[in-house]
């Protein structure tokens, strides 16, 4: 009986130890430089596979009845930068979206300039990286249209979005897209949500919509669009604020 108890205790301890080493091992590996890189390599595979399978396919568009009563905002909901506060105080009448970098024709567009361009309205789903979804009706100009006006040079490979909202560590929010997503017909610079001027918590006056990727790609409070050949030299070098915190640059999954 004693022997059985001892054997049982040993088994139990061995199991607990294996579990602790196994799971603790995952924690230790997460802190190394190399393991996250190895794990991150799967994102490249996912991106390639999804590009091959989904190509230019359109995100599902919903009916008015599907729209969420509240379009839940996340991240920054009320930027405090003085420059932004001044614009908001004047209802964004002085707002200008700059488009520069590797383009033949740099642009500076007011909200009226943008509204004068051909617009697109779409009821699409917004999937947060946390797991929840909301549905909203968005109106804006296709990013492809603005890019055609600016004419990216041959060297341009990415579109970088600079924003007004400062994050906890005082670095400004930014994001970037490759050309396949930038030129997708549902990729919008949106100024209207559910038929009304875009509210501040949702990114007033202008935000990006990329319905085939997760929410953090859809930069709010757009300040400036910059065409670049590489985003390695920008901020943390990974192509976005959350990417610099370890999130995947490709957020289609």
């Amino acid at each position, binding site marked *: 009986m004693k022997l059985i108890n001892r054997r049982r205790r040993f088994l139990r301890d061995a199991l607990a130890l294996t579990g602790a080493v196994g*799971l603790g091992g995952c924690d230790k590996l997460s802190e190394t430089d190399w393991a996250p890189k190895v794990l991150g390599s799967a994102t490249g595979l996912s991106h390639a596979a999804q590009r091959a399978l989904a190509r230019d396919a359109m995100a599902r568009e919903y009916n008015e009845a599907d729209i969420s009563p509240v379009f*839940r905002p996340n991240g920054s909901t009320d930027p405090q930068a003085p420059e932004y506060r001044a614009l908001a105080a004047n209802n964004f009448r002085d707002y200008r979206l700059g488009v520069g970098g590797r383009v033949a024709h740099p642009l500076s567009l007011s909200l009226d300039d943008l509204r004068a361009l051909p617009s697109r309205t779409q009821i699409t789903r917004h999937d947060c*990286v946390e*797991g929840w979804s909301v549905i909203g009706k968005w109106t804006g100009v296709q990013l492809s249209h603005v890019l055609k006006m600016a004419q990216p040079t041959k060297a341009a490979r990415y579109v970088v979005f600079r924003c007004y909202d400062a994050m906890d560590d005082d670095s400004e929010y930014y994001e970037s897209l490759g050309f396949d997503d930038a030129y997708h017909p549902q990729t919008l610079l949106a100024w209207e949500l559910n038929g009304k001027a875009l509210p501040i918590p949702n990114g007033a006056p202008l935000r990006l919509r990329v319905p085939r990727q997760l929410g953090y790609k859809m930069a709010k409070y757009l300040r400036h669009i910059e065409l670049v050949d590489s985003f390695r030299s920008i901020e943390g070098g990974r192509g976005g604020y959350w990417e610099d915190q370890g999130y995947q640059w490709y957020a289609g999954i």
Partner: protein
Amino acid sequence: MASIPEDAIPPPPIPAEQAPTQWVRRVVYRHTMPLRIMHWINAICLLILLGSGLQIFNAHPALYWGQRSTFDRPWLSLGATQNRDGKLRGVTAIGTHRFDTTGWFGVSNVNGQPAVRGFPAWATIPGPQWLAMGRAWHFFFAWIFVINGVCFFAYALWTRHLTRDLVPTRRDWRGIGRSIVDHALLRHPHGEEAARYNVLQRIAYLVVIFFFGGGVVLMGLAMSPRMDSVLGWLVDAVGGRQSARSIHFLFAMGFVAFFLIHIFEVIVTGVGNNLRSIITGRYAIEARDETHQ
């Protein structure tokens, strides 16, 4: 229930006249090497996918039905409330039923202090709240899980492991009632019968491999906004993206249930023998000793 004897200890000699049938220990080659390797790859993948999956779940510990989140009406949520005395209580809500699950779900200790988190730190990969890293683990091992699964399917078809060992025979189906009773009484097959999978085992393996395994992958893909542009039919078939997330979770819980039963059966039918057979392939059975007949 005593099962197949493990190593060493020989049974006491029984006079031939008292024992009309003599049982001898015979070792059979039960699992081929590719199957053993794939089994263990799969086991590691499932463990990591579960831990990292719970980490991802913790970023928004609530589940919904439909295309979008009905934030005030989740069907499952692991939340927290604060008592009047300031103490945190974990509250698990299933529909309108609320349960105090402090210490387990909703509120559990992190470094000795109660913290608000869906599943406890010991169950998630990584332990601390770290969504980005959880996703990195999850998607890496999801690829290995899928590739391993495809290899298994091809191998099982090619070697007829699927049709010969897994699909129940007519005789199996006829004996299903007795098999259920036997399992409930922990009465396990002996002799040559123990060398093959019994009917409940076959059904369980098929359900877990194809329904749970296939389902969990499809529901994972149905959560991808990019894949939804071509899998719209699948998303709609299950009721929407949030339904897909719920079903993905339920399949994962199905794997946990299977794992518990699997480990239970491994233990009651002989840990040593079973472990050896899935590591070395060699499995001992008690066979009738024809020489004494």
